[in-house]
């Protein structure tokens, strides 16, 4: 029988990660440099790498994949660099400027900075065309649509070379008649133009959010369309059996067609798979409360899962644009291996958000970087191997790291080199801890109830320190940590969100019946979509949620409700779910007050079969000679000391004093090889630092379980 694979490709800023799951339970990780100019190029390079490693052709791998999954940054890059398509906006007259007024807000942290520029408009004012029409909050038509205005707008767009059109009218979520008619007219007059209709894309109450989301979608759609066509074609040519699935910011997969139409779902695709991966690696340990942390070269991403449910954000500013659609909540801050240490105008040590990036990189890279970075501090503290990274193939220059820290930090602050390095380590950890607090404490979750999962190449050096600071007792570091997001993608399901708006007070049976009706309606659309993609009744799951609030409140909170029929009898159950959630978030509820709903949302999942999990054999491996003169590691037979490849002085305290600690070769550790910190574990793509007071146990599932000593 032939080998079966599943392939995950996660394109990041610097590297594109490839995870190949083999049906034997083996999971392999590869990395190729990202190629933003021609995104499919990196995929080709990576496949060549895999082909060379396995000794089979790319087409043989692809044609034997049950699924090929792609997390892409093309949408994100277009938005960051403002290289989207030329958009025309059709909106209600009088409200052409809502995306530029931005509710009159200037971002927190920049208020006293007179040079902070205004956000770049994705559609300039001259391409925003107001149409005389108006629906009011009851859904009644106050002003019938003047169709000539739509025609004039189309003519204007044609003359200006507009490639993509967004339509968003006030209250179209309650009565979409005008929007639908305008869409018809645009399709007529501008055939072939990519069209985004606000009430179809994500019909939630909030005109500014909806319009901004529609505009962002329109801005990205032509680009995603092109990208998806290229990738789909490439894989089809390689003999892929199934269409490529793309990873969305909502944490689920989508077929190319959906990605092309609902491109706004693509903007934060990569890190959104971390919660899924975190849950998966925690499953053998029975843990469902998971915080994942992912430290790369320039940024630090945090996600949170409570009781197996991922934190989802809606209505947030993403890269300065208001986005309504649900996105996995990823808190990102400027803290990475390349984050630069500096002394601010108050004389205080700060870390980041500026980063030395990949070039020139940290001082210890020896590529001309003179700024002291987190990696430099970690090297001075003994955490990183002075012999170099990636198994010694990437050399490090410790003297350059020392010089940078000494001149820029230690001397100005009057500290020793070691104390300064530990200070840098402490401050960057403190920044990361504050970030973790934002997704946990600020949302009403006590971090001590969670397991910390380590993702990303640079996180391992900080992981026990972060857990210590947060009061977390259990840490899980998968051996695949540096490619964990790509791994998360290959174990994800297809996921689509559908929404309807119906602001009403939850008072009587009629409101219950209406809610049930709306759910059924939007779910029917989703089911049709999934069935067309080959899913059946058995493999389709539905999750319902309601945006609710107390009458008089303005911000609603999203409440997951079970899959029961909503009627007069179960209405109290719905209300109870809201009271409970409000208590959880804000410490109190107001049971005597009336509750209203704003939006209803159904999430539809097409369940995908998971690849076979990784497996780690028991016992420390020993090296066996082969007949051909080579040698290989064979599990079992050794003692723990066989896995120790060296010892190094490590610094774990503010006084700068070092402790001589063992360095373990991760590839030799077998399941059940328990040991205590202080220690360092070196994997090829990551280094894990175990502080004193923590113990490690490699687990059969391919993760290190690290626990605080009692």
């Amino acid at each position, binding site marked *: 029988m032939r080998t079966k694979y599943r392939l995950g490709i996660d394109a990041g800023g610097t590297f594109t990660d490839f995870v190949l799951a083999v049906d034997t339970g083996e999971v392999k990780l590869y990395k190729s440099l990202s190629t933003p100019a021609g995104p499919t190029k990196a995929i080709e390079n990576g496949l060549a790498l895999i082909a060379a490693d396995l000794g089979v052709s790319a087409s043989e791998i692809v044609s034997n994949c049950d699924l090929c999954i792609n997390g892409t940054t093309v949408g994100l890059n277009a938005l960051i660099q403002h290289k989207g398509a030329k958009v025309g906006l059709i909106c209600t007259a*009088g*409200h*052409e*400027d*809502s995306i*530029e*007024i931005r*509710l*009159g*807000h*200037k*971002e*927190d*942290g920049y*208020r*006293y*900075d*007179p*040079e902070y*520029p*205004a956000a770049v408009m994705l559609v*300039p004012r*001259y391409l925003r065309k107001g149409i005389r029409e*108006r629906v*009011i*909050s009851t859904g009644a038509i*106050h002003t019938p649509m003047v169709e000539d205005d739509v025609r004039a707008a189309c003519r204007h767009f044609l003359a200006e070379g507009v490639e993509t059109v967004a339509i968003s009218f*006030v*209250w179209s*979520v309650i009565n979409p008649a005008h929007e639908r008619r305008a869409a018809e007219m645009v399709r007529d007059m501008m055939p072939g133009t990519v069209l985004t209709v606000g009430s179809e894309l994500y019909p939630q*109450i*909030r*005109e*500014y*959010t909806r319009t901004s989301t529609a505009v962002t979608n329109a801005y990205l759609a032509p680009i995603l369309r092109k990208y998806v066509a290229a990738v789909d074609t490439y894989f089809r040519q390689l003999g892929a059996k199934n269409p490529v699935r793309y990873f969305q910011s909502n944490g689920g997969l989508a077929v190319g067609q959906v990605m092309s139409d609902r491109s706004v779902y693509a903007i934060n695709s990569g890190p959104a798979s971390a919660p899924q991966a975190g849950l998966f690696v925690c499953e053998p340990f029975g843990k469902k409360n998971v915080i994942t942390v992912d430290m790369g070269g320039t940024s630090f991403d945090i996600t949170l899962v409570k009781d197996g449910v991922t934190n989802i954000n809606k209505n947030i500013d993403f890269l300065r644009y208001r986005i309504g659609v649900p996105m996995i909540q990823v808190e990102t801050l400027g803290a990475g291996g390349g984050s630069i240490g500096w002394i601010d*105008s*108050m*004389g*205080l*040590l700060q870390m980041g958000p500026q980063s030395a990036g990949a070039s020139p990189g940290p001082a210890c890279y020896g590529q001309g970087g003179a700024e002291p970075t987190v990696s430099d501090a970690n090297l001075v503290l003994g955490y990183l191997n002075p012999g170099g990274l990636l198994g010694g193939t990437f050399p490090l220059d410790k003297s350059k790291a020392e010089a940078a820290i000494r001149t820029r930090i230690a001397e100005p602050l009057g500290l020793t080199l070691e104390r300064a390095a*530990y*200070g840098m380590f402490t*401050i960057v950890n403190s920044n990361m801890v*504050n970030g973790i607090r*934002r997704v946990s*404490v*600020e949302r009403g979750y006590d971090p001590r109830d969670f397991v910390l999962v380590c993702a990303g190449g640079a996180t391992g050096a900080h992981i026990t320190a972060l857990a210590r600071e947060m009061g977390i007792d259990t840490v899980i570091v998968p051996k695949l940590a540096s490619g964990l997001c790509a791994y998360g993608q290959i174990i994800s399901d297809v996921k689509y969100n559908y929404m309807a708006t119906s*602001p009403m007070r939850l008072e009587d049976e009629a409101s219950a019946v209406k809610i049930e009706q709306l759910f059924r309606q939007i779910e029917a659309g989703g089911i049709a979509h999934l069935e067309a993609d080959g899913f059946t009744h058995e493999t389709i799951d539905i999750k319902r949620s309601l945006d609710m609030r*107390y*009458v*008089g*409140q*303005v*911000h609603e909170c999203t409440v997951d409700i079970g899959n029961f029929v909503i009627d007069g009898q179960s209405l109290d159950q719905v209300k109870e779910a809201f009271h409970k959630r409000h208590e959880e*978030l*804000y*410490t*109190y509820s*107001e049971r005597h007050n009336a509750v209203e709903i704003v939006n209803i949302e159904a999430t539809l999942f097409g369940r995908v079969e998971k690849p076979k999990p990784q497996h780690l054999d028991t016992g420390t491996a020993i090296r066996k000679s082969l007949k051909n003169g080579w040698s290989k590691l064979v599990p079992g037979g050794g003692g723990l000391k066989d896995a120790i490849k060296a010892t190094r002085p490590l610094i774990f305290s*503010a006084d700068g004093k070092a402790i001589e600690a063992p360095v373990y070769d991760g590839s030799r550790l077998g399941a059940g090889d328990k040991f205590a910190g202080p220690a360092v574990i070196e994997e090829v793509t990551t280094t894990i630092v175990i502080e004193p007071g923590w113990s490690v146990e490699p687990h059969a599932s391919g993760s290190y379980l690290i626990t605080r000593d009692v």
Partner: protein
Amino acid sequence: MGKVDPITLSVVRGILETTQREMTLSLEKTARSSVFNLAHDYSTALFNAKPEMILQGQDIPIHLGSLIPAMKAVAKYFGDDIHEGDLILHNDPAYGGSHAIDTCMYKPMFYKGKLKYWTVCKGHLTDIGGPVPAGYNPNAKDIYAECLRIPPVKIWDKGKPRNDVLNLIFTNMRARRDQEGDFNALIGACQVGERALIRMLDKYGEDHAEVCINELLNMADRQMRALIKGVPDGIYEGMAILEDAGHGFGDFEITATVTIKDDGCHIAIKSPPQIPYFINSYEGNSHSGVYLGLMMFAQLPPPYNEGLYRCVSLDFGPKGTLCNAAEPAPHMNCTTTPMETLTDAVRLAFEKAMPSKVAASWGHANGCNIAGWDTRHNEEYVTMVLASIISGAGATPQQDGWHAVGPECCFGALTSGDIELLEHSYPIIIHKYALMTDSCGAGKFRGGSGTCWEVEPLDKDMTFITFGEGRRIPAVGAAGARSKMVERKVGRIEFTRSGKTEVVRKNVIETVKPGDRAANMNPGGGGYGNPFERPVEKVVWDIKNGLVSIEGAREDYGVVIRDLTTLAVDQAATQALRE
């Protein structure tokens, strides 16, 4: 515990900032009134036991300076009668408050039986009692005709809520349900802050934390002193005109005299005697106005604390003047009028000291409150319309002013609320919320656009109360900026009844009927530098985007368009005009 460990210092600073952020977030998410939760018209701060402000959030600038004298007045009032579990409420300007609709909650935080810190929140309620909904009464001759005054009063006594006192207060306010909800939100935020500070003391110890916090105050002091030292010694005077906002007393001059000597700065304010109209500013509010002018000049990065102001001394002039009002002067409009003019005067004085470091003025707030009956739910409604005060920002030496981000006293911290959410909460139809052609102050860098907010009541008469000014004198430009077309750069209100439009430029209480409309136009920001130096292509781009009219291009920028379709420029005529 003598020397400060620089690492712990940075960490403590981070904790203080995070604590304030958590308070702010909690307030936003739980509040009832849209002025809180959509508009972010609230602020949070932390004080030590002295009390000195140890962290000023970046929420709403006009609130924060004023929390310093208010906190001190509250602490002084109770003296040693402060106990664990107390909670103090206050809004009265006679005790350092800004305007009485901004209601403050003060929670003393005890640790091991000792008073260590205060967590403080302040927020703009939708109503504070008095004869006119939403507090702004242009007809008030004294403060008694404006609102319910609340001097420092304990609403919790050693952990026990004083429900009788709370009931007295709520009974005097409109839309009780919203007010109760907002009190809960303020209290919750204070508690969130308290919790975080206790955690900090548990971890770092009282002594260590105190040393760090004192050092943070010293650092802010050193930072401000270094900045002032860089300003040439001298006496600089700035004068700004406060236009007649409908009171009939004519225009007033407000003068700020800034004396710089070495690393110290003294700011003296001169203003005319107070008047029986709601634009008098008590000392607490004037503090904010001056500090805001100073901070706009200083442009120091956060965090902010009271140490910043140690080298600054203030003199608001004799009691009984417009900027140092005495009881019973009416005052409700003071956070914008005359505050914006006061800030302008301070800014203009600093401009003389260091012309290169100054931005233009922002459009002055000219806004409205609305009230009436909601037949959809048979409820009374009242609210300030935050969208109606969103003005244009001033241009800076490097870039155009932001559109729609004012008023200056809020510095972009306000948000105006989604129009659908507003139409859902209140029985209104918002016909327009848009930028306005030619409203940007002209300059080499132009000011930001003001906004027009046009409303119609759904099915019942609406009370429409206007406040503010900036309806005759446009936002002051900087470094040679000037505008010819003043008419479109100033604020105004247009009432359209049965097809006839009436333009109003003063503060009034009007009724708007269903079918009729009221449009509140808010001014744009001032420009920076000579408008004739603005690159022609930038002017053309503004024309293309409807920010500048053909006429405006010629009048304000000296750019002549010869083809209205292609917007081709008449180079010769342009050159002639510009020379």
